[in-house]
């Protein structure tokens, strides 16, 4: 009986070790993937920063005066419409409803 208990314990330890060994491989893979993501993440942050700077309102106003002065026009809010999907029909309404009481 005693021997059986010892054998069971031994088998359990062996199985645990084998399982651990296999998870170690997965951990290694995760480690490698994380290491590969790290520079990509850093690069993405840098690109985003560059994008934020180049598309900042200050820069856009600068581009407008330099290149698109005639192309960019102001749209009055009263002229903006909203499209509402109503089952199979499309309804076009004014975005801002004019108050007739005033």
């Amino acid at each position, binding site marked *: 009986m005693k021997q059986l208990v010892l054998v069971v314990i031994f088998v359990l*330890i062996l199985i645990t070790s084998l399982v651990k060994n296999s998870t*170690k491989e997965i951990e290694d893979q995760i480690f490698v993937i994380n290491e590969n993501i790290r520079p990509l993440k850093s690069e993405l942050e840098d690109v*985003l920063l560059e994008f934020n700077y180049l598309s*900042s*309102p200050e820069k856009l106003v600068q581009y407008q005066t330099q290149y698109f002065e005639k192309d960019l026009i102001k749209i009055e809010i*009263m002229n903006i419409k909203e499209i509402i999907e109503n089952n199979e029909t499309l309804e076009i309404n004014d975005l801002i409803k004019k108050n007739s009481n005033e």
Partner: protein
Amino acid sequence: MNNKKNIILEEYENEFLYKKSKTNLDIQFNRIAFIFFVFLMISVIYSIQLLHLGSLKSDVQTNYAPSIKDYRADIIDRNGNYLVKTVSSIDIGISPIEVIDKQKLLINLKWIFPEKDYVEVEKKLNKNKFFNFEKKISSTNYQKIMSLGDKSIRPEEQLTRIYPQKNLFSHIIGQIDDDNKGISGLEKSFNEKLKQTNEPLKLTVDTDIQFLIREELVKFQSIFRSKGSAAILMNVNNGEIISLVSYPDFDLNKREKIVDLNFINRATKGVYELGSVFKTFTVAAGLEEGLIDTDTEFLNLEKRLQCGKSSISEYDNKIPSDLTVEQILIRSGNVGSVRIGQKLEIIKLKNFLEKIGVLKKMKFDINEVGEPIPFRWGKCKLATVSYGHGITTTPLQLARAYAIISNGGFDIEPSLIKKDLKNYQQKKRIIKAGISEKINTILRKIVTTKEGTAGLANIEGYEVGGKTGTANKTSIGGYSKAKVNTFAGIFPISNPKYVLIVLFDEPKTSSEYIYEYKNKKGSYKGTPFNTAGWTSVEVAGKIIEKIGPILATKHIEN
């Protein structure tokens, strides 16, 4: 002869067998125990190794963010745009003692950095003293310079905090000192959090709207030649600040030491007597207490009242003597407001002002918050406070008070930090239901009617409502000629979403500026009066015209 000796060995055998058997048992058990022990030890060693590998992985995860102790988390706006970013840069130093071939090194460096002054570099090389060759080099140049394989080249990683929006959020974000410690703004109030976390701090502000508002303030600062100006745009329902501008401001990238008091954050730190914008509170308090209604009439109102040494008079002498509560607020009547205040008495007016948070210093996400000047209540004080004089507060507190009065009477906490929707506290009503509707109707009429003082803010499509406030600045022993002109606007008034405060500190009239009337056709050249109606209201109108389409179409309340 047949005598045979029989030797009986039984007893001995038994004894021997017993002993043998006992010995055998011992040997067998020890052997198993030994094997078990060996395997146990192997398992323990293996487990230790696995644990070590596990801990190695967690180390890497910690290092995922820069491990340099000076790292501070980034700050982003509500749309995820960077307002502050910590970037690592590499500085290159050269140790001349370790240079093997100076001429070869110089040729190589010239190839990578052709624009440098190499006469100067050669002089430094000959001095045999370590020197910084180039700061903040690009990753391409770093690879090139390291591929030279010269031992004398010493790269050093540095962290730099950069502010891509330059001046735009200077008063909100604040500065850090040389020890990487926040000394103002969010950098100071969130110093520990920014140092501890790697997650960016998300704010409620919108970069595009902030830019458009600042642009208008900068433009009109030169037109009205004011000392400074401030604007706050806040969501009246949850207290999220979409824009907070104080002008003049400063470029955070320059890291200048700001000592000029004119650079204070006027929106949160500036404590001003704001004048007639307080009349809205007097009327709201009267409605809250049930002492008046909007159509309650005040008859035979004097043109001038005397209280102690000071006299209270109407700004507009053509104002009728008989006015309803609504007309008092629309025409900004001083004497009528005093009469409402006297009806309320000190306790009720004081309690109302305390409830909407204009009397005491408020808690905010940045430390630069002004404290309203305390005063002793009395009969004359009650009279002056009723029309917004002899009482001070900050523009931020004014924004909060107008938000509470217009949003149905629910308390809100102004905030710069974006929270999840679930983290917003359940709304607590502090003003009776129905008061907001009555006040909002009057605020709208101040903008739409010809008697109102804020007609220039009547921008089509936005249903702007609001109240103007023109106050003389205090000086030693009384008031100076310098003014503080304020407009507190709410829009759209039928379903209030935003409060906009525009304040000009010591503006002057402009003889060249052309006003386009909103409530009638035509235009007017030059500022006829140095009042809020001709300064702050005009700017508020221009701001709403520009930011309105963004708020109506792009801006999502999340």
